[in-house]
């Protein structure tokens, strides 16, 4: 495109990939985006409730941390979300889009419930607990490995395959809810072994959730080491970066895909075990409560780092609990929390752009004529424009 004088028309700005941003700067961007999100959420809250937004954030804080009971429930929800996030992370890092965690958790939970119902009062705890653990892990792994095999063999789209597996798991669970319904015909599995408590995970110091939290903590450490220091972790990140490179250096890509999904499904199975035997003591088709999907966002926001995932899962659970408190206080629908979480995730997703790319604006007319070559703005202009880009 040339104008009258024959000069090349240069666009107002263009976008360049950043080489690397210092650690503190990238986190500054994320925190700024979070603050921007909070401002937007504040506006939404005010328009809906016509209350002082600061008071509302205080209500949210109360809702999440107000009492000891709420703090434990926050920790439990956080642990479950974190557990499922840990499960999807290795697959995710391999660029295998496992959005079937929901179904894998449900199947794991169903396997646990089956053991508790069928053998709960027949086997001794020393046999029952290992049996529950093994069946739930196997069930979760099975549910995850089916799409993985097809992906490895025929490159079948895993996003859609795992998604469909969710619904099959949900229907299977609904079926067994009728088979084992309690009271009969209600279509619900009530509290399992309510009188004997057989198969319930142990309370530590009278606390129902502490056991779950400790298990998830151990899994977090395991996953951190597995991804960062093990050969498996290295292989899967190479496959994720470039399949051709992986083949070239002699990694068996198919094996890595199947192995990673087995692990992913197994951890989802554990999440199902903890949910059913450690918290709810029953199972229903909404036991996973959308966490299979939220987990993907937790993992991605944390850049697949298990340590950061503790923070990101806390963030999302906090907003969930807080917004639920707001909706109770104003007798609004409790889906309010999903709107708030959605807005916050949009902003954090958007902020990644400013971490990875830099906007360079066109230089002043005079400078351009003098230079008369492809724009190569000086470092000070570049850093200025980077800041401008962020404030938008």
């Amino acid at each position, binding site marked *: 495109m040339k104008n009258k004088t024959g000069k090349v028309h240069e666009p107002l700005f263009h976008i360049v990939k950043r080489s690397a941003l210092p650690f503190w700067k990238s986190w500054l961007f994320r925190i700024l985006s979070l603050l921007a999100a909070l401002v937007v959420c504040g506006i939404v809250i005010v328009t809906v409730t016509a209350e002082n937004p600061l008071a509302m954030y205080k209500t949210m804080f109360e809702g999440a941390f107000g009492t000891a009971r709420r703090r434990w429930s926050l920790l439990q929800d956080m642990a479950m979300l974190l557990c499922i996030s840990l499960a999807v992370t290795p697959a995710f890092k391999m660029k295998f889009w496992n959005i079937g965690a929901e179904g894998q958790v449900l199947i794991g939970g169903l396997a646990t419930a089956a053991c508790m119902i069928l053998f709960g009062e027949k086997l001794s705890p020393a046999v029952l607990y290992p049996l529950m653990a093994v069946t739930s892990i196997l069930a979760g792994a099975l549910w995850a490995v089916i799409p993985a095999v097809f992906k490895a063999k*025929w490159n079948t*789209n895993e*996003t859609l395959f795992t998604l*469909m597996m969710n619904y099959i798991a949900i229907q299977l669970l609904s079926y067994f809810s009728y088979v084992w319904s309690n009271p009969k015909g209600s279509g619900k599995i009530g509290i399992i072994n309510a009188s004997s408590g057989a198969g319930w995970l142990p309370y530590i110091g009278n606390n129902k959730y502490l056991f779950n939290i400790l298990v998830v903590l151990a899994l977090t450490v395991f996953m951190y080491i597995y991804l960062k220091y093990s050969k498996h972790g290295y292989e899967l990140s190479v496959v994720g970066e470039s399949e051709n490179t992986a083949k070239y250096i002699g990694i068996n890509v198919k094996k890595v895909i199947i192995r990673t999904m087995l692990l992913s499904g197994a951890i989802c199975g554990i999440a199902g075990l903890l949910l059913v035997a450690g918290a709810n003591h029953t199972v229903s088709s909404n036991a996973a409560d959308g966490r299979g*999907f939220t987990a993907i966002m937790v993992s991605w926001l944390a850049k697949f780092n298990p340590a950061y995932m503790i923070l990101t899962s806390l963030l999302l659970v906090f907003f969930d609990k807080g917004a639920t408190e707001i909706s109770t206080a104003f007798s609004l629908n409790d889906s309010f929390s999903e709107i708030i979480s959605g*807005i916050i995730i949009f902003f954090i997703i958007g902020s990644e752009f400013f971490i*990875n790319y830099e906007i360079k604006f066109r230089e002043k007319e005079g400078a351009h004529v003098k230079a008369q070559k492809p724009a190569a703005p000086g470092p000070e202009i570049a850093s200025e424009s980077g800041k401008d880009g962020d404030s938008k």
Partner: protein
Amino acid sequence: MIAAFITRAIMQAIPLLYGSTGEIITEKSGHLNLGTAGVMYVGGICGVIGAFMYETHTSSFNSVLAVLVPLLASIIGSAIMGLIYAVLTVTLRANQNVTGLALTTFGVGFGNFFGGSLIKLSGNTDIPSIALSDTSNAFRTSLPFADSLGVIGKLFFSYSFLAYGAIIIAFVTTFYFNRTRSGLHLRAVGESPATADADGINVGAYKYGATIIGSVIAGLGGLYYVMDYANGVWSNDGFGDRGWLAIALVIFAIWRPNIGIIGSFVFGGLFIIHNYIPGLSMGAQEIFKMAPYVVTILVLVIVSTRKKRENLPPASLGLSYFREDR
């Protein structure tokens, strides 16, 4: 009974058809929008909000306006959803799967929140629930001669204008893809954005356009569901997982909207078949509800094992395009 089954199946099919046609347009530009489920909720609830405002604020009810106001509200709502997705994935190059899931969280939450709180927010608490029967009747006006034609009339002419709209849009989209210059450009953008860019096609504009138009069409599916299928009654989570089923239908239709028409009828039938098989226990019904998902997996596997080039998804699906990448 068979005629009743077919008409019910087609009514189930229409939202899926809207959703899948919209999603196909978006995917042809190389963007896998997993937010379709959320977009369809927003399309539905915005129509409800529009109709609710109109019904509560008007003194003389006019059927044409009663259709136009919710239709416009629905289109605006879904277009904004499409715009959010496009800004994040096209301009800001965010991960499409994560953005899509966030859009679904947001959209479903938005729908359920306003569905559950609209009455409270409007301050008009003497209304017990949202039942927009007048608007729904306006939407469901069918062809006048349908009743006089017996079974034929019931099977072919008893539907509302949005149902025929879905089929017409699907045909028009197929024509657009295969027979127009602009459709060719759109497919080029989805197959290889760099090649399209080198050819002087405005990649960003096509991606934005395809995402927003795709969202608007998907949103109409939500509107059809509330106004026609559910008789103007919004129930939270009533729309269920049809948005995801619409994404499944895209694969079933191997990215062709005209096949999507037949596919949606099949899916609609599978979706309700458990009601028409006599003697099923409650548990067995749940097993039958698996059918659409199992069929989708089968199609997915068959398509991927046969690897015919014209049946494969757009080559750049799921990848964001950055001109300076090599």
